């Protein structure tokens, strides 16, 4: 399917089944509410399909995955820096009421993540959830490896402070 225009529903099914959770989770780690994550999720796949339609070819599955991650991160950045978000900061406490609910509600990573800078959220998520290496993250995000490492250290420190404990191994 790589490099070929998507024409069949099965192709779409394949893309979605492969990357659906990844995109959604990455979006969830980067935006404040489920609704936003839903929006991002849908937008990313539409962007993807438009890209493929335009003839953009992915050299490999890794390339496609990297593209999706990069676009998702950028989209979340755009969303978080939009005028609307800037102008409604005083409603943050209410906005968070729309965050995800989990079985283990006491672990509120979502809130914690929202309290650290955007650039750290992506890095944390990619490193600890997607289990990408620093080098891979660096390539995907177009950032130096040293910067990624620094961001990881700082993000861990911030999360440690917010969550009142050590939550991430420094490995």
């Amino acid at each position: 399917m790589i490099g070929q225009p998507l024409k069949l529903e099965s192709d779409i099914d394949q893309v979605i089944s492969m990357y659906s959770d990844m995109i959604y989770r990455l979006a969830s780690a980067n935006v404040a509410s489920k609704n936003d994550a839903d929006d991002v999720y849908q937008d990313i796949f539409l962007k993807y399909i438009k890209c493929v339609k335009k003839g953009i070819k992915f050299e490999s599955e890794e390339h496609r995955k990297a593209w999706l991650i990069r676009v998702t991160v950028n989209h979340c950045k755009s969303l978080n820096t939009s005028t609307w978000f800037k102008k409604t900061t005083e409603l943050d406490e209410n906005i968070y009421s729309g965050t995800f609910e989990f079985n283990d509600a006491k672990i509120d990573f979502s809130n914690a993540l929202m309290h650290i800078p955007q650039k750290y959220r992506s890095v944390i998520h990619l490193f600890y959830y997607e289990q990408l290496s620093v080098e891979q993250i660096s390539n995907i995000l177009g950032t130096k490896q040293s910067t990624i490492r620094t961001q990881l250290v700082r993000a861990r420190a911030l999360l440690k402070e917010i969550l009142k404990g050590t939550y991430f191994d420094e490995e």
Partner: protein
Amino acid sequence: MKNNEYKKYFDQVSPEQNLIEETKKKMLDEINKPLVCSSKNTRVSFIRYGILTACAAAAAVSVALVPKPANTHISDSDNCSGNNQVDRSFTTVTDLSATTIISSKKTSSPIKNPNYSENIENTCQTPVTPNNADSVNDTDTTVPVTEVPTQSITRTIETAVPQYTSAPSQTAYVPPQTRPQTDSIHTAPQCTVVVTAPAGYRPGASGGNQEGGPVNTPMVTQPCCLEQIYKIEKAEISGIETDIYVNVEYDYIAPLLKNTTDVSAEDAAQYFGDGYCPGNLSNMYPDFKMKMPEEYGLEDGMCMIFGEHTGLDEKNSKFAVVTLSKGYTNLKYAAFSYKPLLTVINGTQYSFTALSQYNDVYFCSFEKNGFYYDLCFKGFDLDQIIETLLSF
């Protein structure tokens, strides 16, 4: 707590099945659309045009609550030919101090109202223009509500002082016989920004490099059967300003000619399509419908574009609004907004849309306790709005 807990946490995060299905459907739709040439990608805030004035007067709030069944949205509408599934008759917004609230119980199935089609058709054929305070007709404002075959509740917060009527008047909007020449259109003051086509964009007949050539899509030029809505008294310019502004994202903004009071779908297609994007608006939106501000008695106003081809998700309360403003010298501006502004207060999601920024009229919809509420606010005083919203 170690790394695996973070993983376990996000393992629980998955897109809902309906979101996946919806995304698939949109992707399929996208595939089936012909390719279009790209357009510029610039966004502009309406603020750039100085719509916000420098007055911080407290805004009064007018609230018109609309009975609306479940799973429908204000943007949803069928053609005037009937077959509408719901009755979306609106009550009339009165003056700034008047607040009439009417709610209807959420319904899970389409309302079969024998009076509805006729009602809608009448609305369509007779654009409504507000009169002055002397021609108040309270009956008209309440009739639509009584037609809703669901239990209704009427509550008056303050004494309503209707200042206009929903009855057609002598000054009702009448489309001019002639339309501006194409040359004139293209010599109009330059559009400041042209931006990307919205989701659902389809190439038009007038574009230069789209595939498939001209598409003769039927255009709806008659006033559409949107809700019988927003018959707001021709409001004085309140000049209300706030930083917490309903800042709808404008993906399109383009000038319309001065004195062009008749902007049919065809005209708009020319303005937008020929002049500013490689398509044709009516082809982008086969179900394109438009209403002029005059029909609502506004200095500027709104109309809505909706339908599946807008790529806007009715279920998620997304709809397009066109705001037509003549607040500027020689120009009218038309702007498309795609996303109402969503915010969550105490667990309830509120969707804000600017109906008429020039007149400071905003729209807010939400669902609470099984009721759907549509409110019009005159002015955007956030404190007052929130207070009002929380009172429901």
